[in-house]
């Protein structure tokens, strides 16, 4: 579809064609003037497309009655757009009220939403001006989700709050999306926000030209062109490392022996790995590690006082966090444990580099 504003020579969005997968979060990113907000607003027809067609769940939005279309699409904006004259409860209940829900149903739904977005129920009787920016933003999300729309549009939702609150709200959105599985379209100028939140990113250039569309890790590994590369910024490998997880790379067994093994065997394992330290395990429990020097004159490995692995991670730990632990550790490795603390293997810088290259 396209959009040309009256009096403007060049179209704001030119023949953009995009298919967003349902149940996942897609981010529209680009510099100002790239038409990302225009594109978003054409979905709920706050802006009417000049030409082309927008289908939501197989229905052309232009053919749907405006209010019906909009009541089925949640909308969250930067300055929250909360109604200053309505209490928080009334704000959240906006769409249900428009849809004519009964009082009891609205009350129950409001309660659910308050839990979902992590809002103090005490706040329900207050007015928006009495809330902090972060609280207002949570109310905005609750209001958008009130009638359980399958689609949620978010226009720069976090750009008006301070970085600490922003980080927290972003984490909350990730947790929320894991529960509700909405089709979310997020507009942001912050590429790092898009990388953190989105399942797919569309990078738009001025005039609504689509430069690249795909999962963030794919974009970071192989930017389609100079523009995308520049927009993704420096340290692309590090950014991708934040997206990949320990489970995405192969682990090594490491210089680890059973505590029942002999001292001679231990020296051989260390020599094979070219290290001067040894990990001890008892079945799938990792006991700890010791320097090679500690083994001198020891008869049984069980006699050694081991140190615990301070650098340890879970399979879902981001690689970037694991790398940070590894470079800070004495042994230059991170031990990997599953959720039941069973030992899975060792992660080294080499493992991370190999995994990134795939």
């Amino acid at each position, binding site marked *: 579809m396209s959009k040309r504003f009256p009096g403007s020579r060049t179209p704001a969005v030119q023949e953009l064609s995009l298919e967003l997968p349902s149940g996942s979060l897609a981010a529209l990113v680009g510099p100002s003037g790239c038409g990302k907000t225009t594109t978003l607003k054409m979905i709920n027809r706050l802006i009417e497309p000049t030409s082309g067609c927008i289908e939501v769940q197989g229905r052309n939005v232009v053919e749907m009655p405006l209010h019906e279309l909009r009541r089925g699409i949640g909308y969250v*904006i930067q300055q929250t757009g909360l109604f200053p*004259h309505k209490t928080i409860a009334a704000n959240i209940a906006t769409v249900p009220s428009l849809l004519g829900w009964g009082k009891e149903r609205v009350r129950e739904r409001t309660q659910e939403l308050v839990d979902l977005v992590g809002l103090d129920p005490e706040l329900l009787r207050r*007015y928006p*001006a009495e809330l902090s920016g972060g609280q207002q933003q949570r109310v905005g999300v609750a*209001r958008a989700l009130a009638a359980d729309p399958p689609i949620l549009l978010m226009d720069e939702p976090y750009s008006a709050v301070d970085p600490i609150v922003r980080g927290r709200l972003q984490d909350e959105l990730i947790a929320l999306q894991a529960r509700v599985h909405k089709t979310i379209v997020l507009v942001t100028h912050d590429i790092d926000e898009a990388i953190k939140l989105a399942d797919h990113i569309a990078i738009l250039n001025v005039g609504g030209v689509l430069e690249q569309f795909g999962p963030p890790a794919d974009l970071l590994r192989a930017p389609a062109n100079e523009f995308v590369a520049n927009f993704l910024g420096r340290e692309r490998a590090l950014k991708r490392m934040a997206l990949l997880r320990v489970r995405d790379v192969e682990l090594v067994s490491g210089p680890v022996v059973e505590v029942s093994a002999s001292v001679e065997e231990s020296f051989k394992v260390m020599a094979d790995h070219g290290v001067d330290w040894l990990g001890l395990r008892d079945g799938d429990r990792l006991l700890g590690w010791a320097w090679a020097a500690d083994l001198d004159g020891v008869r049984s490995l069980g006699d050694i006082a081991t140190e615990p692995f301070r650098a340890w991670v879970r399979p879902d730990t981001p690689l970037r966090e694991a790398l940070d632990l590894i470079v800070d550790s004495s042994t230059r490795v991170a031990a990997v444990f599953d959720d039941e603390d069973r030992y899975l293997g060792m992660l080294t810088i080499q493992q991370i580099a190999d995994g990134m290259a795939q």
Partner: protein
Amino acid sequence: MSFLGANGPDSLIWWDWVDRHREEIKQATFEHLRLTLIAVAVGFLISGALALVALRYRWTYAPITWITGVLYTIPSLALFVLLVPWTGFTTLTGEIGLVSYTLLILIRNIVAGVDSVPAPVKEAADAMGYRPVRRFFAVDLRLATPTIIAGLRIATVTTIGLVTVTGLIGLGGYGGLINDGIDRTFSTPIVVGAGLSVVMAVTLDVGLAGVERVLTPWARRKVAR
């Protein structure tokens, strides 16, 4: 206290005159209030309609404010005198003048109030699926309430002042008392008329401020924080 307290020829107010003219003062108060309330009510209705037109058809706003602005600049006495040949010494003559003076203030405040509703709030309302008419009454107009009431307060206080002028064309009210005093070079009715019109202005102004507080609980809480 001597100049308010005694009944000598030098005192500004003769309390025994006030005592003897209670009925007359009560009548004047009633007439003054009636003329004021009719003017503000009718003015508010006309302004509401014109403001709706101005908000719906933006190009009409300039001519509407221009015309009501011209009306506002005509000296009140001159306007009453001009109208007398057509409508006589009637309430209608007085009200035409009084109403026309409220229009500029009220229209401007209604339009400014609706215009001051933050764009994100309007956009959010649209995006939630409000239909235009419902949004106007449930969102725009509600949020414009403080500005609209501010206009009503100015219009009311101004009208109370102007009603004293209608006394000159024999419509009663406090203007009648003041005229009487001027004619006889007798200060007491002047002081009573002027003083009570001030009391009325302050009372209605405070009353409207109270109405605003009741209608805009969100604004009150914000201040309380």
